[in-house]
């Protein structure tokens, strides 16, 4: 009986936006008579922080304080189309829609300010809620005064609309999989190291430390990015060592139907998580951002499984690595089949072993 420690590594990539694209998001903005900003977007906030992120993008693009933004995604009568909050698309795709809407509203704002200041709109900028003349900052008018002028002097409503739609990428050759356009809005990258402690008597795998590096393009809000990465790490830990709907898959027997019989990660299993964010801006994302929300639970399971091998010398390739599965693997100590230059692991799981002789799924492993 002993406890063993081990380390494992992984490097992953993940697309932003719906696979093959074709997933629109739209937004519109109106400015109230005192310069405060209403943003209407159809993006559901599922806890990913899209209300915050989109409000930050609008504040930045308009040049007004974040606190001036009211964000409304509450209903389909007032909010335009958003394909939805999935496919890591809310920051990139829906974020681009609000960015375009904000830029259009900014143009309208500058048009009105230009009349008030008698300066060409191209020579104006918006900084911290004030429209200022480039190179002559004493010539300025506050955004509230511009909005008031629009409402009461010129009889206009300052609005902006924006839509983002990356064109649908068709599979033009179903035999090769070739596509005619990039089938993603962007691709994000991450690497991970895991350190585990494995008890070879109880079979328990305890994840002690995780190091994770994500290239997020640009962190619109570093706190929320870290939240995604660290929350994702816990979900990845669940995938690796705890969670399964069918404990005896493929059997459907003994399914857990309550929190007490389905093991989800809890705070007691929280490892030390070290997060590194790097920023290589995406060419097309809002302020260079890419999506990383989904991939945040992808790098841990393979790093943890490799760390288990490093610790106790068995490859467990069926997840999760429960105490039962690990103890069986330690007991069985399966060796790969070696034939010439070929090394075949996990043969007992393969369709070549399990499926009928003439099954469509069987295939040849070159020797």
């Amino acid at each position: 009986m002993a406890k063993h420690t081990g380390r494992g590594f992984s490097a992953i990539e993940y697309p932003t936006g719906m696979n093959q694209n074709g997933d629109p998001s739209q937004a519109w903005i109106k400015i109230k008579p005192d310069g405060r900003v209403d943003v209407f977007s159809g993006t559901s906030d599922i806890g990913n922080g899209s209300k915050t992120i989109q409000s930050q993008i609008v504040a930045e693009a308009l040049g007004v304080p974040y606190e001036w933004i009211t964000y409304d995604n509450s209903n389909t009568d007032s909010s335009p189309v958003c394909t939805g909050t999935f496919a890591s698309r809310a920051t990139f795709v829906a974020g681009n829609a609000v960015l375009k809407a904000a830029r259009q509203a900014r143009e309208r704002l500058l048009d009105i300010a230009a009349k008030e200041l008698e300066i060409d709109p191209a020579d104006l900028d918006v900084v911290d809620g004030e429209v200022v003349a480039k190179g002559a900052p004493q010539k300025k008018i506050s955004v509230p005064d511009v909005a008031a002028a629009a409402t009461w002097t010129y009889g206009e409503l300052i609005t902006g609309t924006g839509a983002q739609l990356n064109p649908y990428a068709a599979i033009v050759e179903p035999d090769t999989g070739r596509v005619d356009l990039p089938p993603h809005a962007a691709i994000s990258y991450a690497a991970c190291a895991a350190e585990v402690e494995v008890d070879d008597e109880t079979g328990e795998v305890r994840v002690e430390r995780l190091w994770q590096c994500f290239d997020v393009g640009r962190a619109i809000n570093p706190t929320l990015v870290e939240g995604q990465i660290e929350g994702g790490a816990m979900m990845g830990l669940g995938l690796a060592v705890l969670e399964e709907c069918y404990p005896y898959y493929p059997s459907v027997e003994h399914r857990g139907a309550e929190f007490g019989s389905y093991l989800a990660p809890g705070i007691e299993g929280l490892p030390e998580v070290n997060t590194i964010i790097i920023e290589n801006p995406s060419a097309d994302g809002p302020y260079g951002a890419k999506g990383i929300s989904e991939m945040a639970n992808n790098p841990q399971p393979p790093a943890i499984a490799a760390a288990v091998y490093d610790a106790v010398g068995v490859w467990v390739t069926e997840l999760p690595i429960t105490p039962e599965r690990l103890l069986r693997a330690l007991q069985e100590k399966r060796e790969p089949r070696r034939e010439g230059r070929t090394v075949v692991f996990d043969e007992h799981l393969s369709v070549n072993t399990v499926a009928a002789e003439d099954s469509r799924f069987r295939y040849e492993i070159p020797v």
Partner: protein
Amino acid sequence: MKAVGARLPRYDGVAHVTGRTTFVDDVRVQNMLWTKALRSPHHHAGIKSIDTRKAEEMRGVHAVVTHADVPRNVYGHLEALGIPGDEPLLAEDDVRYQGQPIAVVAAEDEETAQAATEAIAIEFEERAPLFDLRLAADPDAPQIHHWGNWYPHFEADFDHRQIRKGDIDKAFAEADTIVSGVYRPAAIEQLPIETQTGLAVPEPDGRLTIYSCTQALYFSMGVVAAHLQWPLNKLKFVGGTVGGGFGGKVDTATETLIALLALKSGRPVKWRWTREEEFLCSSTRAPWHMEITDAVTRDGWILGRKMLTLHDSGAYARFSPYGVTKHSFHHTGAYTIPNLHFDGYCVFTNRPPTSAMRGFGVTSVSFATELHVSRIADVLGLDPFQVRLKNANRIGDTSPNWISYTDPSTVPTILAIADAVGHELPGDYGTMTRDPREGDLLPEHLAAQQKLNGGH
């Protein structure tokens, strides 16, 4: 102050943690009815008859809805992408998973609704189920889906998703070592704190307001409109604030059925799934079965990959075909492998349909690819960082479907992790960049591919 890059608190964070956010179940309206579903007790069975008369006559029951009440019972989530529907909103001729809804009841309270579902008489004819997707193509496998035991893809002559790139036979002929392995990540539950919940309110003007916890307001509204055969202006979806989704609230669970119950009863109707329903009847992350065989050189280059993927789609397609396609596009992970032979099947089994969950289609292959690369390094006796770094995709390399990578950060992220854990790398690895390949990092097998692609 710059807004972008600022560590601002969440827009809705304080309201969430102080319990002041209004989620769908917090919305109460006058005269609201409650919903329960009659669900299949069988994994696979024919339905010979459905008799709802007794339930309809029960005191407190205001509406019972079966397939006969649905204007369009079969509507596919991916019809806009040319993928027809296969799943009935309410079961008609057969049931294909335990927990499949057959009828829904709206009553004065949940207890009455539950009692009414139990008063519905159904005659079943049990059939053999299929659970092991590896056996789906066996000659004696039970036939469980009207399209066959795996998704037919409806395009050209392909009943699966395939990738063919480069010269796979040459890659294997030239390999020093061939490494094969099987990877099986499990089905898991999205596990949101807020179970599937919806409220449908008939408005005086004839519209329906639907309070929904969907992750996709317009998508879900489109699904309801299609089943009802209604224009969008008769529907108003209220939502946008979701108590956890993780992909489990992209498929539309409650909205259409409560809409039908509200129309039939003329009353507002709420349905909130129990935790048991959330666990047993909702879609899960799919279990995947992946077999990878790689042709490698003794110094760690991956020349080619043969891969078989079987995706456990459960009883119906839902978003699974999309997941398998996305999976195929990313089946080389963060590496550039020029010679590929990939076959992916979206296989039906008699378990609740699997569908979207965080990392859909790729979480599986990230696990398989990465553990396989760790094994390759171990078999060859090489440093797992160095094997990853040399094969890492770089600017100008191409993806499995010939798309040029414009800003891959595999090398920078790996180097950051090596540095963080104190893993020492020899000079030419430690100073590697993501810039286009040259010199030792552009060996013959990759140069051949770049030439084929017209160079970069």
